[in-house]
């Protein structure tokens, strides 16, 4: 699985992207966030308030309870502010 982080989520995790093998038992974006949160303080901080985190799966906006699989590209970021 490819994971990308943008804006202050990226700043807090300290990395822009990574490749991981999705562990057994992780079936949704929320579960993935919970799993990432325990990897260190930066990740814990990034996902401390899930209300402020948005997710895209395979480059489409998705809800936090959306299923994820090992072949997905998943991105975490704050609400967008383009335009």
């Amino acid at each position: 699985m490819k994971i990308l982080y943008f804006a202050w989520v990226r700043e807090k995790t300290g990395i822009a992207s990574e490749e991981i093998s999705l562990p057994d038992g992780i079936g949704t974006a929320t579960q993935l966030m919970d799993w990432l949160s325990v990897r260190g303080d930066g990740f814990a901080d990034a996902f401390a308030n899930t209300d402020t985190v948005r997710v895209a799966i395979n480059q489409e906006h998705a809800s936090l309870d959306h299923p994820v699989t090992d072949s997905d590209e998943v991105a975490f970021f704050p609400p967008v502010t383009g335009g």
Partner: protein
Amino acid sequence: MIRVQLEDFDIGQEIDALTAGNTGIGGICSFMGTVRDMAGGSGADDAVSTMTLEHYPGMTEKALAQIDAEANTRWNLAASLIVHRYGELTPGDRIVLVVTASAHRQDAFEACQFLMDWLKTKAPFWKLEASEDGASWVEARESDDDATARWK
């Protein structure tokens, strides 16, 4: 048509290229977003020195193309264009250009507003404002969500 780019753009050239040879067009609506010198949420004292636009390469292009197609489904457009910049900009710099051309002005106006409202709430861009006091990420505004909601 959509483009995501570092470079500046020229609105006159963009419109000419978009509408060239199509004399069925009666009206061309455009909207250009520029960098303000005041920080988004804060008081007037907090002068912005630079604004850096981060985006999600790949998703950005895909999302812009989708919404451009959607606008052409909802309204009767002869041509449409979205150009969105990324990278470091300074106050007064152009950020985004949306152009909609139609035989009738109401289609052009509505489609242009739809695209701008959508860009504000769905396009994967994030703005980092730097001032003398440091840098901060611009927060999304509820009013933008409300503006997008009316197009359901």
